[in-house]
């Protein structure tokens, strides 16, 4: 066959959409929404990964960090002493400047001459003329995104809030966003620092340090990508859910368009178009539609990502301290990946229809019963496949149970996906059986019997939309139960953890003076100093290599003892043991190291390995690391921990003038007013972070439910003409249009209600999997399962509401249809 002949055949196939534009819209909408949500999430992930890669490149040589044990600032003399002793250390200064417009910009000052070679910082000196970087007026190197955020051009000198200016800006694509890098001499002046913040040294360099110094191994620094993996995997899972729901629409639309073109395909085959080219042409049609849908979806996805990015960036900064730019940075593989996933999904959704079209013999093509007969056979296949998927889910659940915490996140999501898909596959056989039973039971009421039998007839097309609805509803119930349960637990936990009324973090050099002054000051009941440090845990039951852990020092004041969120303890009151030298560990560490109260752990201390008894396990939501808690006194004594923050307990029932306290701290010690934070503000900040973190999840969840609604609407619209032909005989026999419309709405509302009833246990199972399995795999701690009756009620109402809303337009059309049209439908039926 010539190209012209293929073109004729393709145009003939496509001409179907001229008569049925609704089906084309349904197909494109399915592809568009599936691709848009998936691409949106992937755009955010790709942009974030790019930022992490640049942040990691900044420390690419994994430099060790040297600081003073007491947290005091370094002096240049210290640096010079170490250099004179032959230590290849390099000074760095870190801080933040406030620009005239209130923007705060982190600044990193480096000394390119002593910096260990390689990595992003090394590249900075290679790419910049060294002299320009080192000499006044110096250079401020920033990422292009930072330049865009500052609305500045290269060479500009942004004005600071203090009135000074920054060195001229220069672009450096290797730097992460929201960071300015400059020569240490310029940074020290800009940050008003008295000396370097710390020194860096190549990990392989050996160095014996005096006792007052501490060397933090680069191994202990967790790469940003590692910390945020679970956050992005969550986003990916939500995007995948939307993609699957969208592909359900595509599958429904493809089945419908192929079924309605069986006659056309039979004619083309009879006129001499061979079977293989026909299937190839159908695949070409899919490819064309797929490209159009995918491109529209990707464009919308980028827009969606741009809209969601500020919230995501705020969440990531609050949760992990990672900075993302406000601008999307999309590598080539993002575009290629978006197209591949959408087209791959389209192929998956259309493969069964194409396969079936390829296998149908010419004479069977004209009979739509051949297509319908397939559905009856499919029901058995669906039940079997659903069972297999559930077996897979149970198997994966068992495997996940064997894994240590903070492992198997992908496995967990695969388990959930298998369970959701398995349940969705069970839905049509269940509905078909239920409707058949109801039709038999109501055989003495002809109209009711017809109504149930009629829904059963509609199932081949309706079932796919109902499967999408089941998945969306279950996900909605599961995720909202998890988020709201988390909120309850988190707020409770905040109340327990934040025991002091005020919190202050004085500079290390003024810490003792401030603490002494506060002890003497009237109107303060007690001081609760906290400190933190880090070390390694040696030889635990589950890990033979030394595991980095955080150290947290608290003051066991009665108020703290009463409220601290303990999950497990050696006795009803573990605090005396704690005060006598035992430690408490967070849930993450307890799970990852299989340690229980009463057991002993060994920590690396400056004096050598030391064993501590575990007195209790406490909840520590939001902390990505394992943590050991000691009394602050013991933390100083054993680990020389640097000064941290001070909690201030105020006398109950007595008003304390916090503003006056801020003024005094500022006057006496030069401490900024912002350094003193009251408990309510801290709680509010935490709540805001919490809400922002789940804003994306909620948005994607709502959009997925919207997609399921679109699936229903489009499938109802697409089959509306056929429905009218089925209803016309009833109308001709005396059933009014009003009654027919009412029956139609009841049929759909009832089917949606049955679907929602199945979605409730599935949603609760999903919520349990999220809090008990996914959370442990992602963060190392689990949440209690909360069941919210109002969420269950919402699920039921939402299902019926979404379905009725989708059914409203076709029903309204039927209602408004002139009798003459129905007469013609009757003639055609």
């Amino acid at each position: 066959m010539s190209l012209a002949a293929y073109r004729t055949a393709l145009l003939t196939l496509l001409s179907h959409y001229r008569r049925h534009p609704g089906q084309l819209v349904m197909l494109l909408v399915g592809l568009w929404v599936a691709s848009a949500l998936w691409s949106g999430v992937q755009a955010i992930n790709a942009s974030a990964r790019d930022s992490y890669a640049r942040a990691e490149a900044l420390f690419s040589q994994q430099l060790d960090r040297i600081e003073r044990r007491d947290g005091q600032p370094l002096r240049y003399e210290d640096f010079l002493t170490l250099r004179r002793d032959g230590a290849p250390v390099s000074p760095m200064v870190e801080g933040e400047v406030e620009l005239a417009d209130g923007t705060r910009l982190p600044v990193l000052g480096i000394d390119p001459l002593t910096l260990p070679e390689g990595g992003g910082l090394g590249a900075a000196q290679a790419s910049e003329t060294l002299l320009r970087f080192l000499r006044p007026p110096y250079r401020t190197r920033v990422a292009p995104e930072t330049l865009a955020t500052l609305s500045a051009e290269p060479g500009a000198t942004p004005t600071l809030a203090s009135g000074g200016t920054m060195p001229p800006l220069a672009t450096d694509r290797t730097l992460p966003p929201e960071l300015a890098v400059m020569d240490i001499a310029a940074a020290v002046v800009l940050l008003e620092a008295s000396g370097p913040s710390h020194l860096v040294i190549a990990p392989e360099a050996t160095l014996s340090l005096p006792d007052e110094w501490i060397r933090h191994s680069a191994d202990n620094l967790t790469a940003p990508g590692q910390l945020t993996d679970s956050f992005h995997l969550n986003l990916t899972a939500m995007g995948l859910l939307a993609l699957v729901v969208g592909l359900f629409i595509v599958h429904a639309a493809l089945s419908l368009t192929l079924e309605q073109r069986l006659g056309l395909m039979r004619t083309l085959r009879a006129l001499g178009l061979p079977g293989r080219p026909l299937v190839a042409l159908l695949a070409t049609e899919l490819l064309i539609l797929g490209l159009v849908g995918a491109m529209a979806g990707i464009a919308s996805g980028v827009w969606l990502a741009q809209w969601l990015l500020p919230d995501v960036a705020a969440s990531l900064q609050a949760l992990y301290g990672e900075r993302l730019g406000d601008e999307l940075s999309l590598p080539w593989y993002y575009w290629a990946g978006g197209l591949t996933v959408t087209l791959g999904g389209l192929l998956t959704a259309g493969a069964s229809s194409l396969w079936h079209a390829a296998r149908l013999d010419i004479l069977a093509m004209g009979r739509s019963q051949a297509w319908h007969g397939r559905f009856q056979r499919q029901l058995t296949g669906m039940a079997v496949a659903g069972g297999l998927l559930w077996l897979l889910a149970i198997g994966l659940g068992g495997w996940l149970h064997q894994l240590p915490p903070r492992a198997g996140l992908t496995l967990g999501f695969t388990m959930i996906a298998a369970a959701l898909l398995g349940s969705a596959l069970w839905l049509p056989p269940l509905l078909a059986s239920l409707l058949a039973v109801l039709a038999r039971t109501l055989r003495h009421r002809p109209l009711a019997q017809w109504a149930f039998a009629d829904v059963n007839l509609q199932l081949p097309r309706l079932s796919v939309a109902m499967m999408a609805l089941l998945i969306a509803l279950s996900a909605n119930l599961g995720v909202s139960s998890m988020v709201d349960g988390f909120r309850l637990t988190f707020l409770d936990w905040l109340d327990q953890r934040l025991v002091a009324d005020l919190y202050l973090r004085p500079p290390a050099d003024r810490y003792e003076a401030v603490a002494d002054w506060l002890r003497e000051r009237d109107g303060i009941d007690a001081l609760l100093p906290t400190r933190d440090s880090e070390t390694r845990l040696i030889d635990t039951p589950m890990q033979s290599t030394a595991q980095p852990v955080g150290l947290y020092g608290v003051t066991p004041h009665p108020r703290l003892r009463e409220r601290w969120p303990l999950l497990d303890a050696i006795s009803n009151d573990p605090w005396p043991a704690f005060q006598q030298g035992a430690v408490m560990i967070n849930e993450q560490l307890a799970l990852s190291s299989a340690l229980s109260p009463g057991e002993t752990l060994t920590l690396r201390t400056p004096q050598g390995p030391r064993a501590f008894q575990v007195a209790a396990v406490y909840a520590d939501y939001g902390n990505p690391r394992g943590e050991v808690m000691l009394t602050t006194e013991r933390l100083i004594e054993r680990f020389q921990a640097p000064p941290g923050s001070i909690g201030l307990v105020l006398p109950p029932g007595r008003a304390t003038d916090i503003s006056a306290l801020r003024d005094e701290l500022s006057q006496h010690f030069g401490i900024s007013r912002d350094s003193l934070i009251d408990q309510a503000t801290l709680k509010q900040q935490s709540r805001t972070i919490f809400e922002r973190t789940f804003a994306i999840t909620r948005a994607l969840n709502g959009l997925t439910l919207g997609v399921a609604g679109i699936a229903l609407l489009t499938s109802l619209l697409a089959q509306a003409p056929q429905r009218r032909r089925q209803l016309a005989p009833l109308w001709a026999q005396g059933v009014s249009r009003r009654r027919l419309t009412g029956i139609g709405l009841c049929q759909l509302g009832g089917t949606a209600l049955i679907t929602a009833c199945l979605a409730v246990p599935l949603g609760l199972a999903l919520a349990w999997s999220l809090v008990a399995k996914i959370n442990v795999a992602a963060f190392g701690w689990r949440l209690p399962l909360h069941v919210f009756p109002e969420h269950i009620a919402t699920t039921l109402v939402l299902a019926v509401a979404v379905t009725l809303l989708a059914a409203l337009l076709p029903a309204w059309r039927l209602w408004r249809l002139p009798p003459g049209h129905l007469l013609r439908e009757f003639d055609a039926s």
Partner: protein
Amino acid sequence: MLELCDVSKSYATPQGPLSVLAGISLRLPAGDSLALMGESGCGKSTLLHLAAGLDVPDSGRVILAGQALDTLSESRRSALRRHRLGLVFQAFHLVPSLSVSDNLRLQARLADREDSAWTDELLGRLGLIGMRDRYPEQLSGGQQQRLAIGRALAVRPDLLLADEPTGNLDERSADEVLTLLLALVADSGCALLMVTHSPRVAAPLNHCLRLSHGQLMEATP
């Protein structure tokens, strides 16, 4: 042009295999015409499908334009159908989303044998010249069948297979369509095998056979 040698065909049913053609043979030379009559369900359409290569016999051989269909691949059988055969169905099987003009040209375009002068002439002779931009649903039954005949003849086939071409039409339309069909077939010189249960439709054709209990026998319309 068409030869069936000892062709048998049966279908599987819940009650066991149902034989519809039991070793039948027939020969239709080029330019000749043959009416195939019989009761509903006797296997007339099955025979036509076998002749068109739309179905394959259980045994026996179908030779079309000198080529044994059982030796050809599905693709070659399609090519043969595309270039050498014209098919007219009782239910027309027009493409509802294509205009009259595009429907008429469809097979000729698939076969790369579009002849504008010939298709324009056909449109005129079929009485559809003023309706070329309409869609099939805007035509009467008789007009639709005329269009289906035009589509089959637009490719200038060697053999026209017609399955109850007037079965869906009223008497007057049926007469019109039949007269037109026979005139066009005579002008084009192609052979005609027509399945019908109407003696009146079969009468103008050169030969007539009756299919009964899977066997062919001579008949007079």
